[in-house]
Structures are given as structure tokens and as C-alpha cells.
């Protein structure tokens, strides 16, 4: 156990834990965009910045991203002050210039009193804030189908060479994790389209309800050694089947006792 001070309160934390986890456990709200429990922290959005110091640092203070900073004995952490407010405000100001149409960014910026960006606004700017949550979740999944391509202001998240990613399995993890809902997808009839790639959705062999994509099911069957027949019918029909199976056992048991 490690003892540290957060906003004047002494708290305990496990060795190797990141500062952000401890701060959140204390019920203190620090804004984050790129943070998600399922993926490794990378400190991309930099909104979770906190100020740290120690007793023997002679008053020196350091601003660090709390999602990437492991806890240390005797650390004195400040999560909200004027300097940190300005840092977060500047980040959101820049994001507002990049993604002026994103409701997510606009709402966050409004909390910092920003209605309009003070930087030259990109009028056609998309909603991607380059947090890389999508690429990291794809990595956790074991596919790494998408990645940042191009350089500088042309940088976008896309498949290799900006084409439809061959490794994508259409699981929609990236679309769901995206904080700004920038990643667009649609399910039309039997087909799902995401990243300019089309997938066939499995239709329940009994009722025709669409479940996940064939590619995703095949991936789970192979990677997690799940039987292939689990994926053939939908959850509603599987429940009915379960009821019928158990029901037949009940009936058989009743007949045996008579």
C-alpha cells in the first residue's frame, strides 16, 4: 500500500496503480476523453492533467497526465486549480477549432466557458479528436485493423493506405467506444457497413433476427474456442429452446413418477 495526498486528503492506493484510478475512487471528477477501462492509457487527450509535488521538492510542482502516472509514496496531488483550468481550457479551445460541429466537444468546452474557439476554426473539420480509443480497442481485440494514416493536419484514422481495412470484422467496438460518435456505420437488411467495408450479418435460422457479423462470430469461434452452433440462432430463440429443453425434462420426470 502507498499513501498519498489528493486535494489535501490522505488516501491509500495499491502499488503500480495509476493516479487517475485513485482520483476517481475518491469521487473526484477529472475530465477525460480518451480514457476507457478496457484499453491501455496513452495520455492522448491530456485533459486528466493534475499537479503533483512532494514535500522535499522545495515548492516545485509538475503537471502530469494522471492516467499515465503511477502512484508514489508521499505524493501531493492537486486536481483542480487555476493553472489546470487554463490547461484544460486551452486543450478544449484547440479541439473546438478542429471539430467545431461535435456536440461532445462543444458541450465540454461550454463547461469551461468556451462558446467559440479563439483559434482559426476549420469549418469543415470532422468530429475525430485523435484520442485513438478506436485503434487501441481494435488492438485489444487482436485485430489492429485501423490505425492513424498520413501526417500532420492530414492525419486520419483509417485502414491501411486509406482503404477498407482487410482485417476488420465489423464488431463495432471502435464505433461504440468513440467519444464523439465520429465513426459511422449502418445496418441495412443483411449487410453491415463500416469503414467502407460490407459484412454479412448472421440471420437467426428460426426467426431471421440479425445478430453479429459472420466474420466476428468466426473470429470468436476460432480465438475463444466456442462451438459454432452457438451463433446460429438469436437470443430470443435460444431462450425458447432452453425452456423447451427443460420443459421436456420436467414432463419426463413427472411421467416417471406416475
Amino acid at each position, binding site marked *: 500500500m502507498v499513501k498519498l495526498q489528493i486535494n489535501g486528503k490522505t488516501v491509500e492506493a495499491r502499488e503500480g496503480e495509476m493516479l487517475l484510478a485513485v482520483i476517481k475512487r475518491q469521487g473526484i471528477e477529472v475530465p477525460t476523453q480518451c480514457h*476507457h*477501462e*478496457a484499453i491501455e492509457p496513452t495520455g492522448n487527450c491530456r485533459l486528466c492533467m493534475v499537479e503533483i509535488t512532494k514535500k522535499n521538492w522545495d515548492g516545485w510542482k509538475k503537471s502530469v497526465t494522471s492516467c499515465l502516472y503511477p502512484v508514489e509514496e508521499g505524493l501531493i496531488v492537486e486536481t483542480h486549480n487555476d493553472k489546470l483550468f487554463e490547461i484544460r481550457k486551452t486543450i478544449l479551445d484547440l479541439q473546438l477549432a478542429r471539430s467545431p460541429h461535435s456536440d461532445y466537444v462543444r458541450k465540454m468546452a461550454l463547461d469551461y466557458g468556451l462558446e467559440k474557439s479563439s483559434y482559426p476554426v476549420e469549418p469543415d473539420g470532422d468530429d475525430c479528436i485523435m484520442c485513438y480509443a478506436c485503434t487501441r*480497442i481494435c488492438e*485489444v*481485440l*487482436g485485430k489492429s485493423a485501423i490505425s492513424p494514416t498520413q501526417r500532420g493536419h492530414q492525419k486520419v484514422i483509417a485502414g491501411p493506405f486509406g482503404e477498407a481495412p482487410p482485417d476488420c470484422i465489423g*464488431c*463495432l*467496438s471502435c464505433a*461504440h*467506444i468513440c467519444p464523439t460518435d465520429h465513426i459511422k456505420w449502418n445496418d441495412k437488411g443483411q449487410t453491415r457497413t463500416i469503414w467502407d467495408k460490407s459484412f454479412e450479418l*448472421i440471420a437467426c435460422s428460426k426467426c431471421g433476427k440479425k*445478430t*453479429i457479423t459472420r466474420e*466476428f*462470430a468466426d473470429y*470468436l469461434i476460432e*480465438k*475463444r*474456442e*466456442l*462451438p459454432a452452433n*452457438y*451463433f446460429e440462432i*438469436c*437470443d*430470443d*430463440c*435460444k*431462450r*425458447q*429452446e*432452453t*425452456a*423447451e429443453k*427443460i*420443459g*421436456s425434462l*420436467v*414432463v419426463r*420426470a*413427472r411421467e416417471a413418477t406416475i
Partner: protein
Amino acid sequence: MKYRYQVIPELCTGCRTCELACAFKFARDGKPGRSRIYPLAHAKDQYVPVVCFQCDDAACVRACMFDALRRNEETGAIDVDYERCVRCEACVAACPFGCALVDTGFDEIVKCDLCRGNPVCVKFCPESALRYVEIKD
């Protein structure tokens, strides 16, 4: 102290009180379609309450690529960790009993978590077809 959730289908009359209790507890609007327990008819007027089996080697846990489904050692149930879940619906597709569900109202994956060790359906079942019994060693 360990408990086991028991379903005795012979005693089920299909009154659907468990479904309502569950829907009121979780969805708050009491819509039976948003329950985690389903009393389903297998023959005329014969019902089986279908609810998560909390399997030992669960397909949902295996299917989850993000470790969002984990066994709660205290209650014995498999819980969804909403901080980790990305709603890919792999568990819903994988569960062979159809007991991992999507709640369209909350846009969340839901499954029976035994109400964190205090199941409401058991309290409301008038026929004691649902029980939560202590395991004696």
C-alpha cells in the same frame, strides 16, 4: 456464506411476477420486455422461468474480448463491468441459453447478476419456484 439460486420449474404457474419484479427493479418502468428473467411456455400452460445459469465455464465470459464479464466471488454471479464493456454484443450472440441481453432503453448489455446477492424475483415468487438457498458444507 454461500448461496445458490434455484429454479424449480415444476412449481412455476407462469404468473410472470418475477418478470415484473425484475423489470421494475432494473428498467424502472416495469416493462416486462426489459426483464432479465423470462417465464416461457414450453407447452400449453406449462412454464419454465429462463434465467442466467451463471455457468462455471461460461460462453459469455469466453466470448468477451475485453474482460468485461467477470465472476463476482461474493455472489457467485457473472457481472458486467460497465467501465470495460464496449457493447460489441459478442456475449449476447455467444450465450447458448440466450440469457445475455441488450437493453434497448439504456443501450446496455444486461444479464442477471442475482441483484448483487439479494434477488428480488425470489422474494416475489408466490409459488416458491425461485429460491435462494444457503449451501451447507
